[in-house]
Structures are given as C-alpha cells and as structure tokens.
C-alpha cells in the first residue's frame, strides 16, 4: 500500500477491525458527559486555569486570599500582632485591590454589615451574608442574578467576616483552618525598607499533605510600621501539577469610610437585566427532602440486578460510607417463579459471582481501585476534604462517582440543580402526564446557544418521602428520542420509613434492587482494599 495516498484502502481487518468497531459503537456515557460540560462551563475566571483538584483552593482565591490574610494576622502571637489588631479595630470597611494579569480585582469586606463583595473583569458579586443572598452580575449577559448563597459562599464569607469580627473584638485566636487540608509549614517576619519607608512583613507558608497534593501557598502581609495597618498582602502559589507554575497576586489594602451597599454600588448599571433565581419555598423544601433522604438512608447490603437475571452490582451503605462492587463477568441467572423471598435468593446467588470493587468511601475519602491498590479518587472533590468530610461533600461524592448509577437512594433521589445563575426552575402542581400523585419540578439551563438545551424533569411524590418517581434528562434538545429517563415501577420503605425504588425502568434497561437492611455490615468493608471472600 502507498501510505501517502489518502484514498488507499487502509481498512482494518480481523480482530483489530472488530475491536475498533466495538469501541466506536460504544455509546458515550451521556450523564458523565453532561456532568463534565456543566462543570467546565461553570469554571469561574480566572480560576479556570487550575485543575479540578486545585479548584477548591482557587475557587476561594479572591476571597480566600483575604481569609488567608486574616489567618496570617491571627496566627501571629506577638506584640506586633496585637498592635495590628488594635489598628484595624474600628475600621468598617476593608478594601483590597489587585491590578495585574487577572485583574483588576477589588474585594470588599464589612463585618459590621456582613457583606463581602468582589469586582473583577469577568464577574461582580455582592454577598449579603445577613440575608443569605448572593447577587452576581454577568458582564457578558449584562444581567444581575439574585441567587441563594451556596454553602461555600456562606462558609467563606462567614468565616472571613467572623475572622474580621474577631479581629475587631481583639481576640487572639481563631478556631479552624480555612485552608484545610493545607498545613502551615513555616512562618517568619522581617523588617523591610522601601523608598526610605520601613515596613513589617509577616510571611506564612502553607502546603498540602501528600495524601492531597496541591499547591504550596505563601502569604506575605506588609504592615505600615507607623499606622500599624496592613497595607498589602501577597499570595504566591506554587503549582507542581501539571507543570511547575508560580502565580502571584498582590493586593493593596486600604480602609475607606464607606463601601458598597448593593451590587449597583460596585459599578453595575441599574438598567441591567435582573433575574431572580431564589427558588420558591416548595422547591427548596423538595430539594432539602431529597438531600436528607440520601443522607439519612438506612444501612443496607444491596444488589442491583438487571432484568431479574443478571447481578450487576452490589452495594453496602452505612451512614456516609459506601462500597460498590461490579460483577467481574456477565452472569445470567434466572429468578425462579413464585419466590417468597427474592432478596435472600439473590443474595445467595451473588455469592457464586466474582466481584471487583469499583468504589469505596470510608466516610472521609472516596477511593478507586487501581490494579492492586486503592487510590483516593483524584477526580472527586472529597479527596481534598480528607479532614472534614461534611454533609455536602458526601452528597456531591455520591453524585459524581459510581454511586449515581447503582445505589437506589441516589437513583430514587436525584438532586435538582436549582439556585444557579444558568438554571431556571418551574413547578407544575398537576403535570399533564407522568406517575399519579406527583408534582413536576422542571429545571433547565437558560443559556441556550446553538440549539443547545438542557432540561430535567422530576416527578416527585410528596406522599412517599419526596421519592422522584420519574426523572427525565434532555441532553441537547427536548426530542423524546434524546431523553434519558428512569421511572420507578415498584417501591418499598426502609425500616426508618424512607421510600426507595425496587424496580426502575429506563433507557438503560430494567433495574431490580434487592436490599437487606438486617445484614451485618462490618466497618472493614469501607476500608480501601479488596474484600476477602471465604471459599
């Protein structure tokens, strides 16, 4: 053959041809694709430059820079520090301004008014922590969005403000490390002189432990020795993955007598379009119930069997720990007719199948097996919360990993994504179609461009602990053939009364769940290692 000639027949043959054909025919997992696109689309600037595993830091960069700045102050048990505290007391507003590659960025804090605000080239926000409302201005859309504060907004601003308040009150110690799991590795201070003026500089280095690799961060606070007021802080970030990269942001600090009272005071035109994304109470209640049912679901050992003939996955759940295993080979087993206790029968059959762990969460970190080893799931944000696996991160962890495909409490309780700038929500109390006794919650991305739409419909049964009886996801348009759907055909209640699906039909086939709530569930199941099976 002539390799230069593009028209030459270089078609594959035999096994290689079959293998390529199989790969090309394998459908792309739509849910995962959707998830990653949503995620990418929402990368905030300039944070997008960082990898997922660094996002936690960078998502906090502008605010956290300030937070770190405060930590630096507070971690300094010296006379110098006490003098700084005294100097800052009585200042209603702190303003930090950055000019540079990422900027200009201006941060505002007021403990008195419980406000944190930010103006940057890509986004302007005003967080009213007192009313739990976040206002965001999107310059591209020239639109102001009123949003519920997220837990992250709340945590960050509240922490920053409480730190600020503590400074005002002259407290010497602050509990908690907001840079967790980053650890303080070094601190020092020095006197510097610039243009004939003397300054005091406090420097503090943070690094991430090995278990959660991340950037090392150095903060430098420069204090005017005359006024004892901080006049600048610099955050230096050394990234080693994927390549060595140093980023430095220097903020100049001052203390204006007045500050922004709303987002329009930050320079946003009052004529901008205004969109309210605060979900109605009933939506909020539904989302809360769905999250709660996931979170408090009873302990169980379960099996997912497709079409009542193929054990596909087995799962163990205990509080916020779980373990998922997939059957190693396709095994077809026919369930005998007239079984009185199909769960026991399937559990017995499962012992004849070879299983391989696919995901383990020990309540702190999610692990994925990688050959002989189990490694923290770098893809999952939980990896970076090794010291504080809180409720929200646990729920997110379930959403991201294998759990969303096989665990009945995830399939029965998909969380509607509400309260986001791009997502509108609608409630239909009496939907035209769908399971009886349900109301419909509809979310869709409003930023439809180039024919793209993203629609989700949830048929929620409030009389069955808000179980989502039917869930539809429209990927790129709303044509029925492009919808992924699942519908619960049979359900039951856990010993504590939470409804869960037993039989679910959908685009992936029919799933049967067999749950044993009385099974012994030793803690070692949730340790990152293969399960020892006694023969």
């Amino acid at each position, binding site marked *: 053959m002539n390799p230069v000639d593009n028209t030459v027949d270089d078609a594959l043959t035999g096994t290689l041809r079959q293998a390529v054909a199989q790969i090309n025919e394998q459908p792309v997992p739509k849910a995962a694709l959707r998830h990653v696109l949503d995620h*990418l689309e929402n990368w905030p600037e300039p944070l997008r430059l960082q990898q997922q595993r660094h996002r936690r830091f960078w998502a906090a960069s502008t605010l956290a820079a300030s937070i770190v700045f405060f930590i630096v102050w507070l971690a300094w048990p010296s006379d110098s520090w006490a003098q700084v505290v005294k100097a800052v007391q009585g200042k209603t507003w702190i303003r930090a301004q950055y000019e540079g590659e990422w900027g200009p960025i201006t941060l505002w804090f007021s403990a008195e008014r419980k406000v944190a605000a930010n103006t940057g080239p890509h986004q302007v926000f005003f967080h009213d922590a007192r009313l739990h409302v976040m206002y965001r201005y999107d310059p591209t859309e020239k639109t102001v969005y009123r949003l519920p504060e997220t837990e992250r907004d709340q945590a960050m601003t509240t922490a920053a403000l409480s730190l600020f308040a503590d400074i005002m009150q002259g407290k010497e110690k602050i509990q908690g490390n907001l840079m967790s799991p980053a650890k303080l590795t070094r601190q020092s201070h020095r006197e510097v002189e610039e243009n004939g003026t003397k300054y005091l500089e406090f420097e503090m280095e943070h690094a991430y432990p090995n278990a959660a690799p991340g950037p090392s961060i150095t903060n430098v606070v420069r204090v005017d020795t005359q006024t004892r007021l901080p006049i600048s802080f610099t955050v230096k970030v050394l990234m080693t993955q994927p390549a060595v990269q140093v980023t430095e942001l220097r903020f100049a600090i001052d203390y204006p007598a007045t500050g922004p009272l709303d987002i329009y005071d930050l320079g946003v035109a009052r004529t901008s379009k205004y969109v309210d994304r605060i979900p109605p109470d009933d939506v909020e209640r539904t989302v809360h119930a769905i999250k709660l049912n996931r979170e408090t679901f009873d302990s169980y050992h379960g099996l997912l069997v497709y079409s009542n003939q193929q054990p596909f996955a087995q799962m163990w759940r205990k509080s916020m720990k779980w373990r998922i295993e997939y059957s190693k080979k396709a095994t077809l087993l026919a369930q005998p007719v007239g079984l009185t206790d199909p769960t026991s029968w399937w559990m017995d059959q499962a012992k004849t199948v070879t299983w391989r762990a696919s995901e383990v969460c020990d309540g702190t970190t999610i692990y994925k097996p990688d050959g002989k080893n189990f490694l923290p799931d*770098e893809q999952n944000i939980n990896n970076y919360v090794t010291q504080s696996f809180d409720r929200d991160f646990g729920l997110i962890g379930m959403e991201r990993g*294998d759990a969303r495909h096989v665990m009945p409490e995830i399939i029965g309780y998909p969380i509607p994504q509400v309260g986001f700038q791009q997502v509108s929500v609608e409630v239909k109390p009496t939907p035209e179609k769908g399971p009886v006794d349900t109301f419909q919650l509809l979310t869709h991305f409003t930023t439809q461009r180039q024919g793209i739409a993203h629609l989700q419909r949830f048929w929620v049964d409030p009389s069955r602990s808000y179980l989502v009886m039917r869930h539809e996801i429209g990927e790129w348009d709303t044509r029925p053939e492009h919808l992924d759907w699942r519908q619960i055909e049979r359900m039951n209640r856990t010993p504590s009364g939470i409804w869960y699906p037993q039989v679910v039909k959908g685009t992936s086939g029919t799933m049967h769940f067999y749950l044993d709530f009385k099974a012994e569930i030793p803690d070692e199941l949730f340790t990152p290692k293969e399960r020892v099976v006694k023969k």
Partner: protein
Amino acid sequence: MEPNWYVLVRTWGPMVYTAAWRVLGNAADAEDVVQDVFTEALRHWKLNKVNNWASWLRRVAVYRAIDRLRQRRSHAPLDTILEPSHSQTPDAVLESKELSGQLRESLQQLSEHEAAIFCLRYFEELSYDEIAKALNMETAAVGMALHRARARLAELMEPIWKEV
C-alpha cells in the same frame, strides 16, 4: 474571532469527551482528560493562540487520553468494569469490553505518537492529510506510522483471540 468560553465548551466539549472516552473506555478517566484539555485550552484561549479549535482540541484530547492510558499500563486489569451507561444494557457492555479492552491494552504498548495517530485515524476518522496537519508532520510519515501501528496491534491482539 475568539469564541466565548461557553460556546467553546458546549461546541467542542462533546467531541473532546468522546475522543477521550474512545481511547480510555472509562467515564471518570475521560472526565479527567477533558478537564486537563480544557485547562490547557483556557490558557491558550486567554492568549488567543489557537486558530483551529476543533483540530487543536481533538489532538490534545487524544494525546492526553493516551498519556492516561499509558499511566495505567502496569496495573490495569483486562477486564476493567465499565460504568453502566444509561443507554446500554450491562450485557452489551460486558461483551464488548472484552475486545475493546484488549485493543486499549495493546495501544499502551505502542509509542505515544503511533497510538495517537492510530486513534486519530480510526476513532476520529481523520484523513492522512488532516492528521499530518494536526500533528505538523509529513503525510508520508503518517502513513508509515499507521502501518507500524496496525502491524504491531495485530501482532499484540492476535494470540489472545486465537485461543477463543
């Protein structure tokens, strides 16, 4: 004119994901690759350096996916279980992963460059010219690399399946 970020992600994201998915056959790994690719893309986007985003993204996606594939060379089991997809029954998944898994494992044995060229040709269905342009190489060299890749893959895969 530079596309805005949203358009870039929504227009080419599926292509990037699909390219990574074909090479890796694992949703989580493919997600990881997509994030790597767009991290890099953002840097270029900001600097306004890319003329042809489709070509650039596809090339980087395939290379990053192969990198990842090679990283798991030493320990990935042949029968790595695939995530169940919404639109494919587990039976089908389990059947097809045998052969496709063999190919993915065999791809790890090629040089990165040959593997990438093979993927661009047979998964992404690019012509020799398009591959040459994307990789800044001679068309003849593409043909040679493909020839070597096919021969090596056939050699790697054949013994396994003769036993069946």
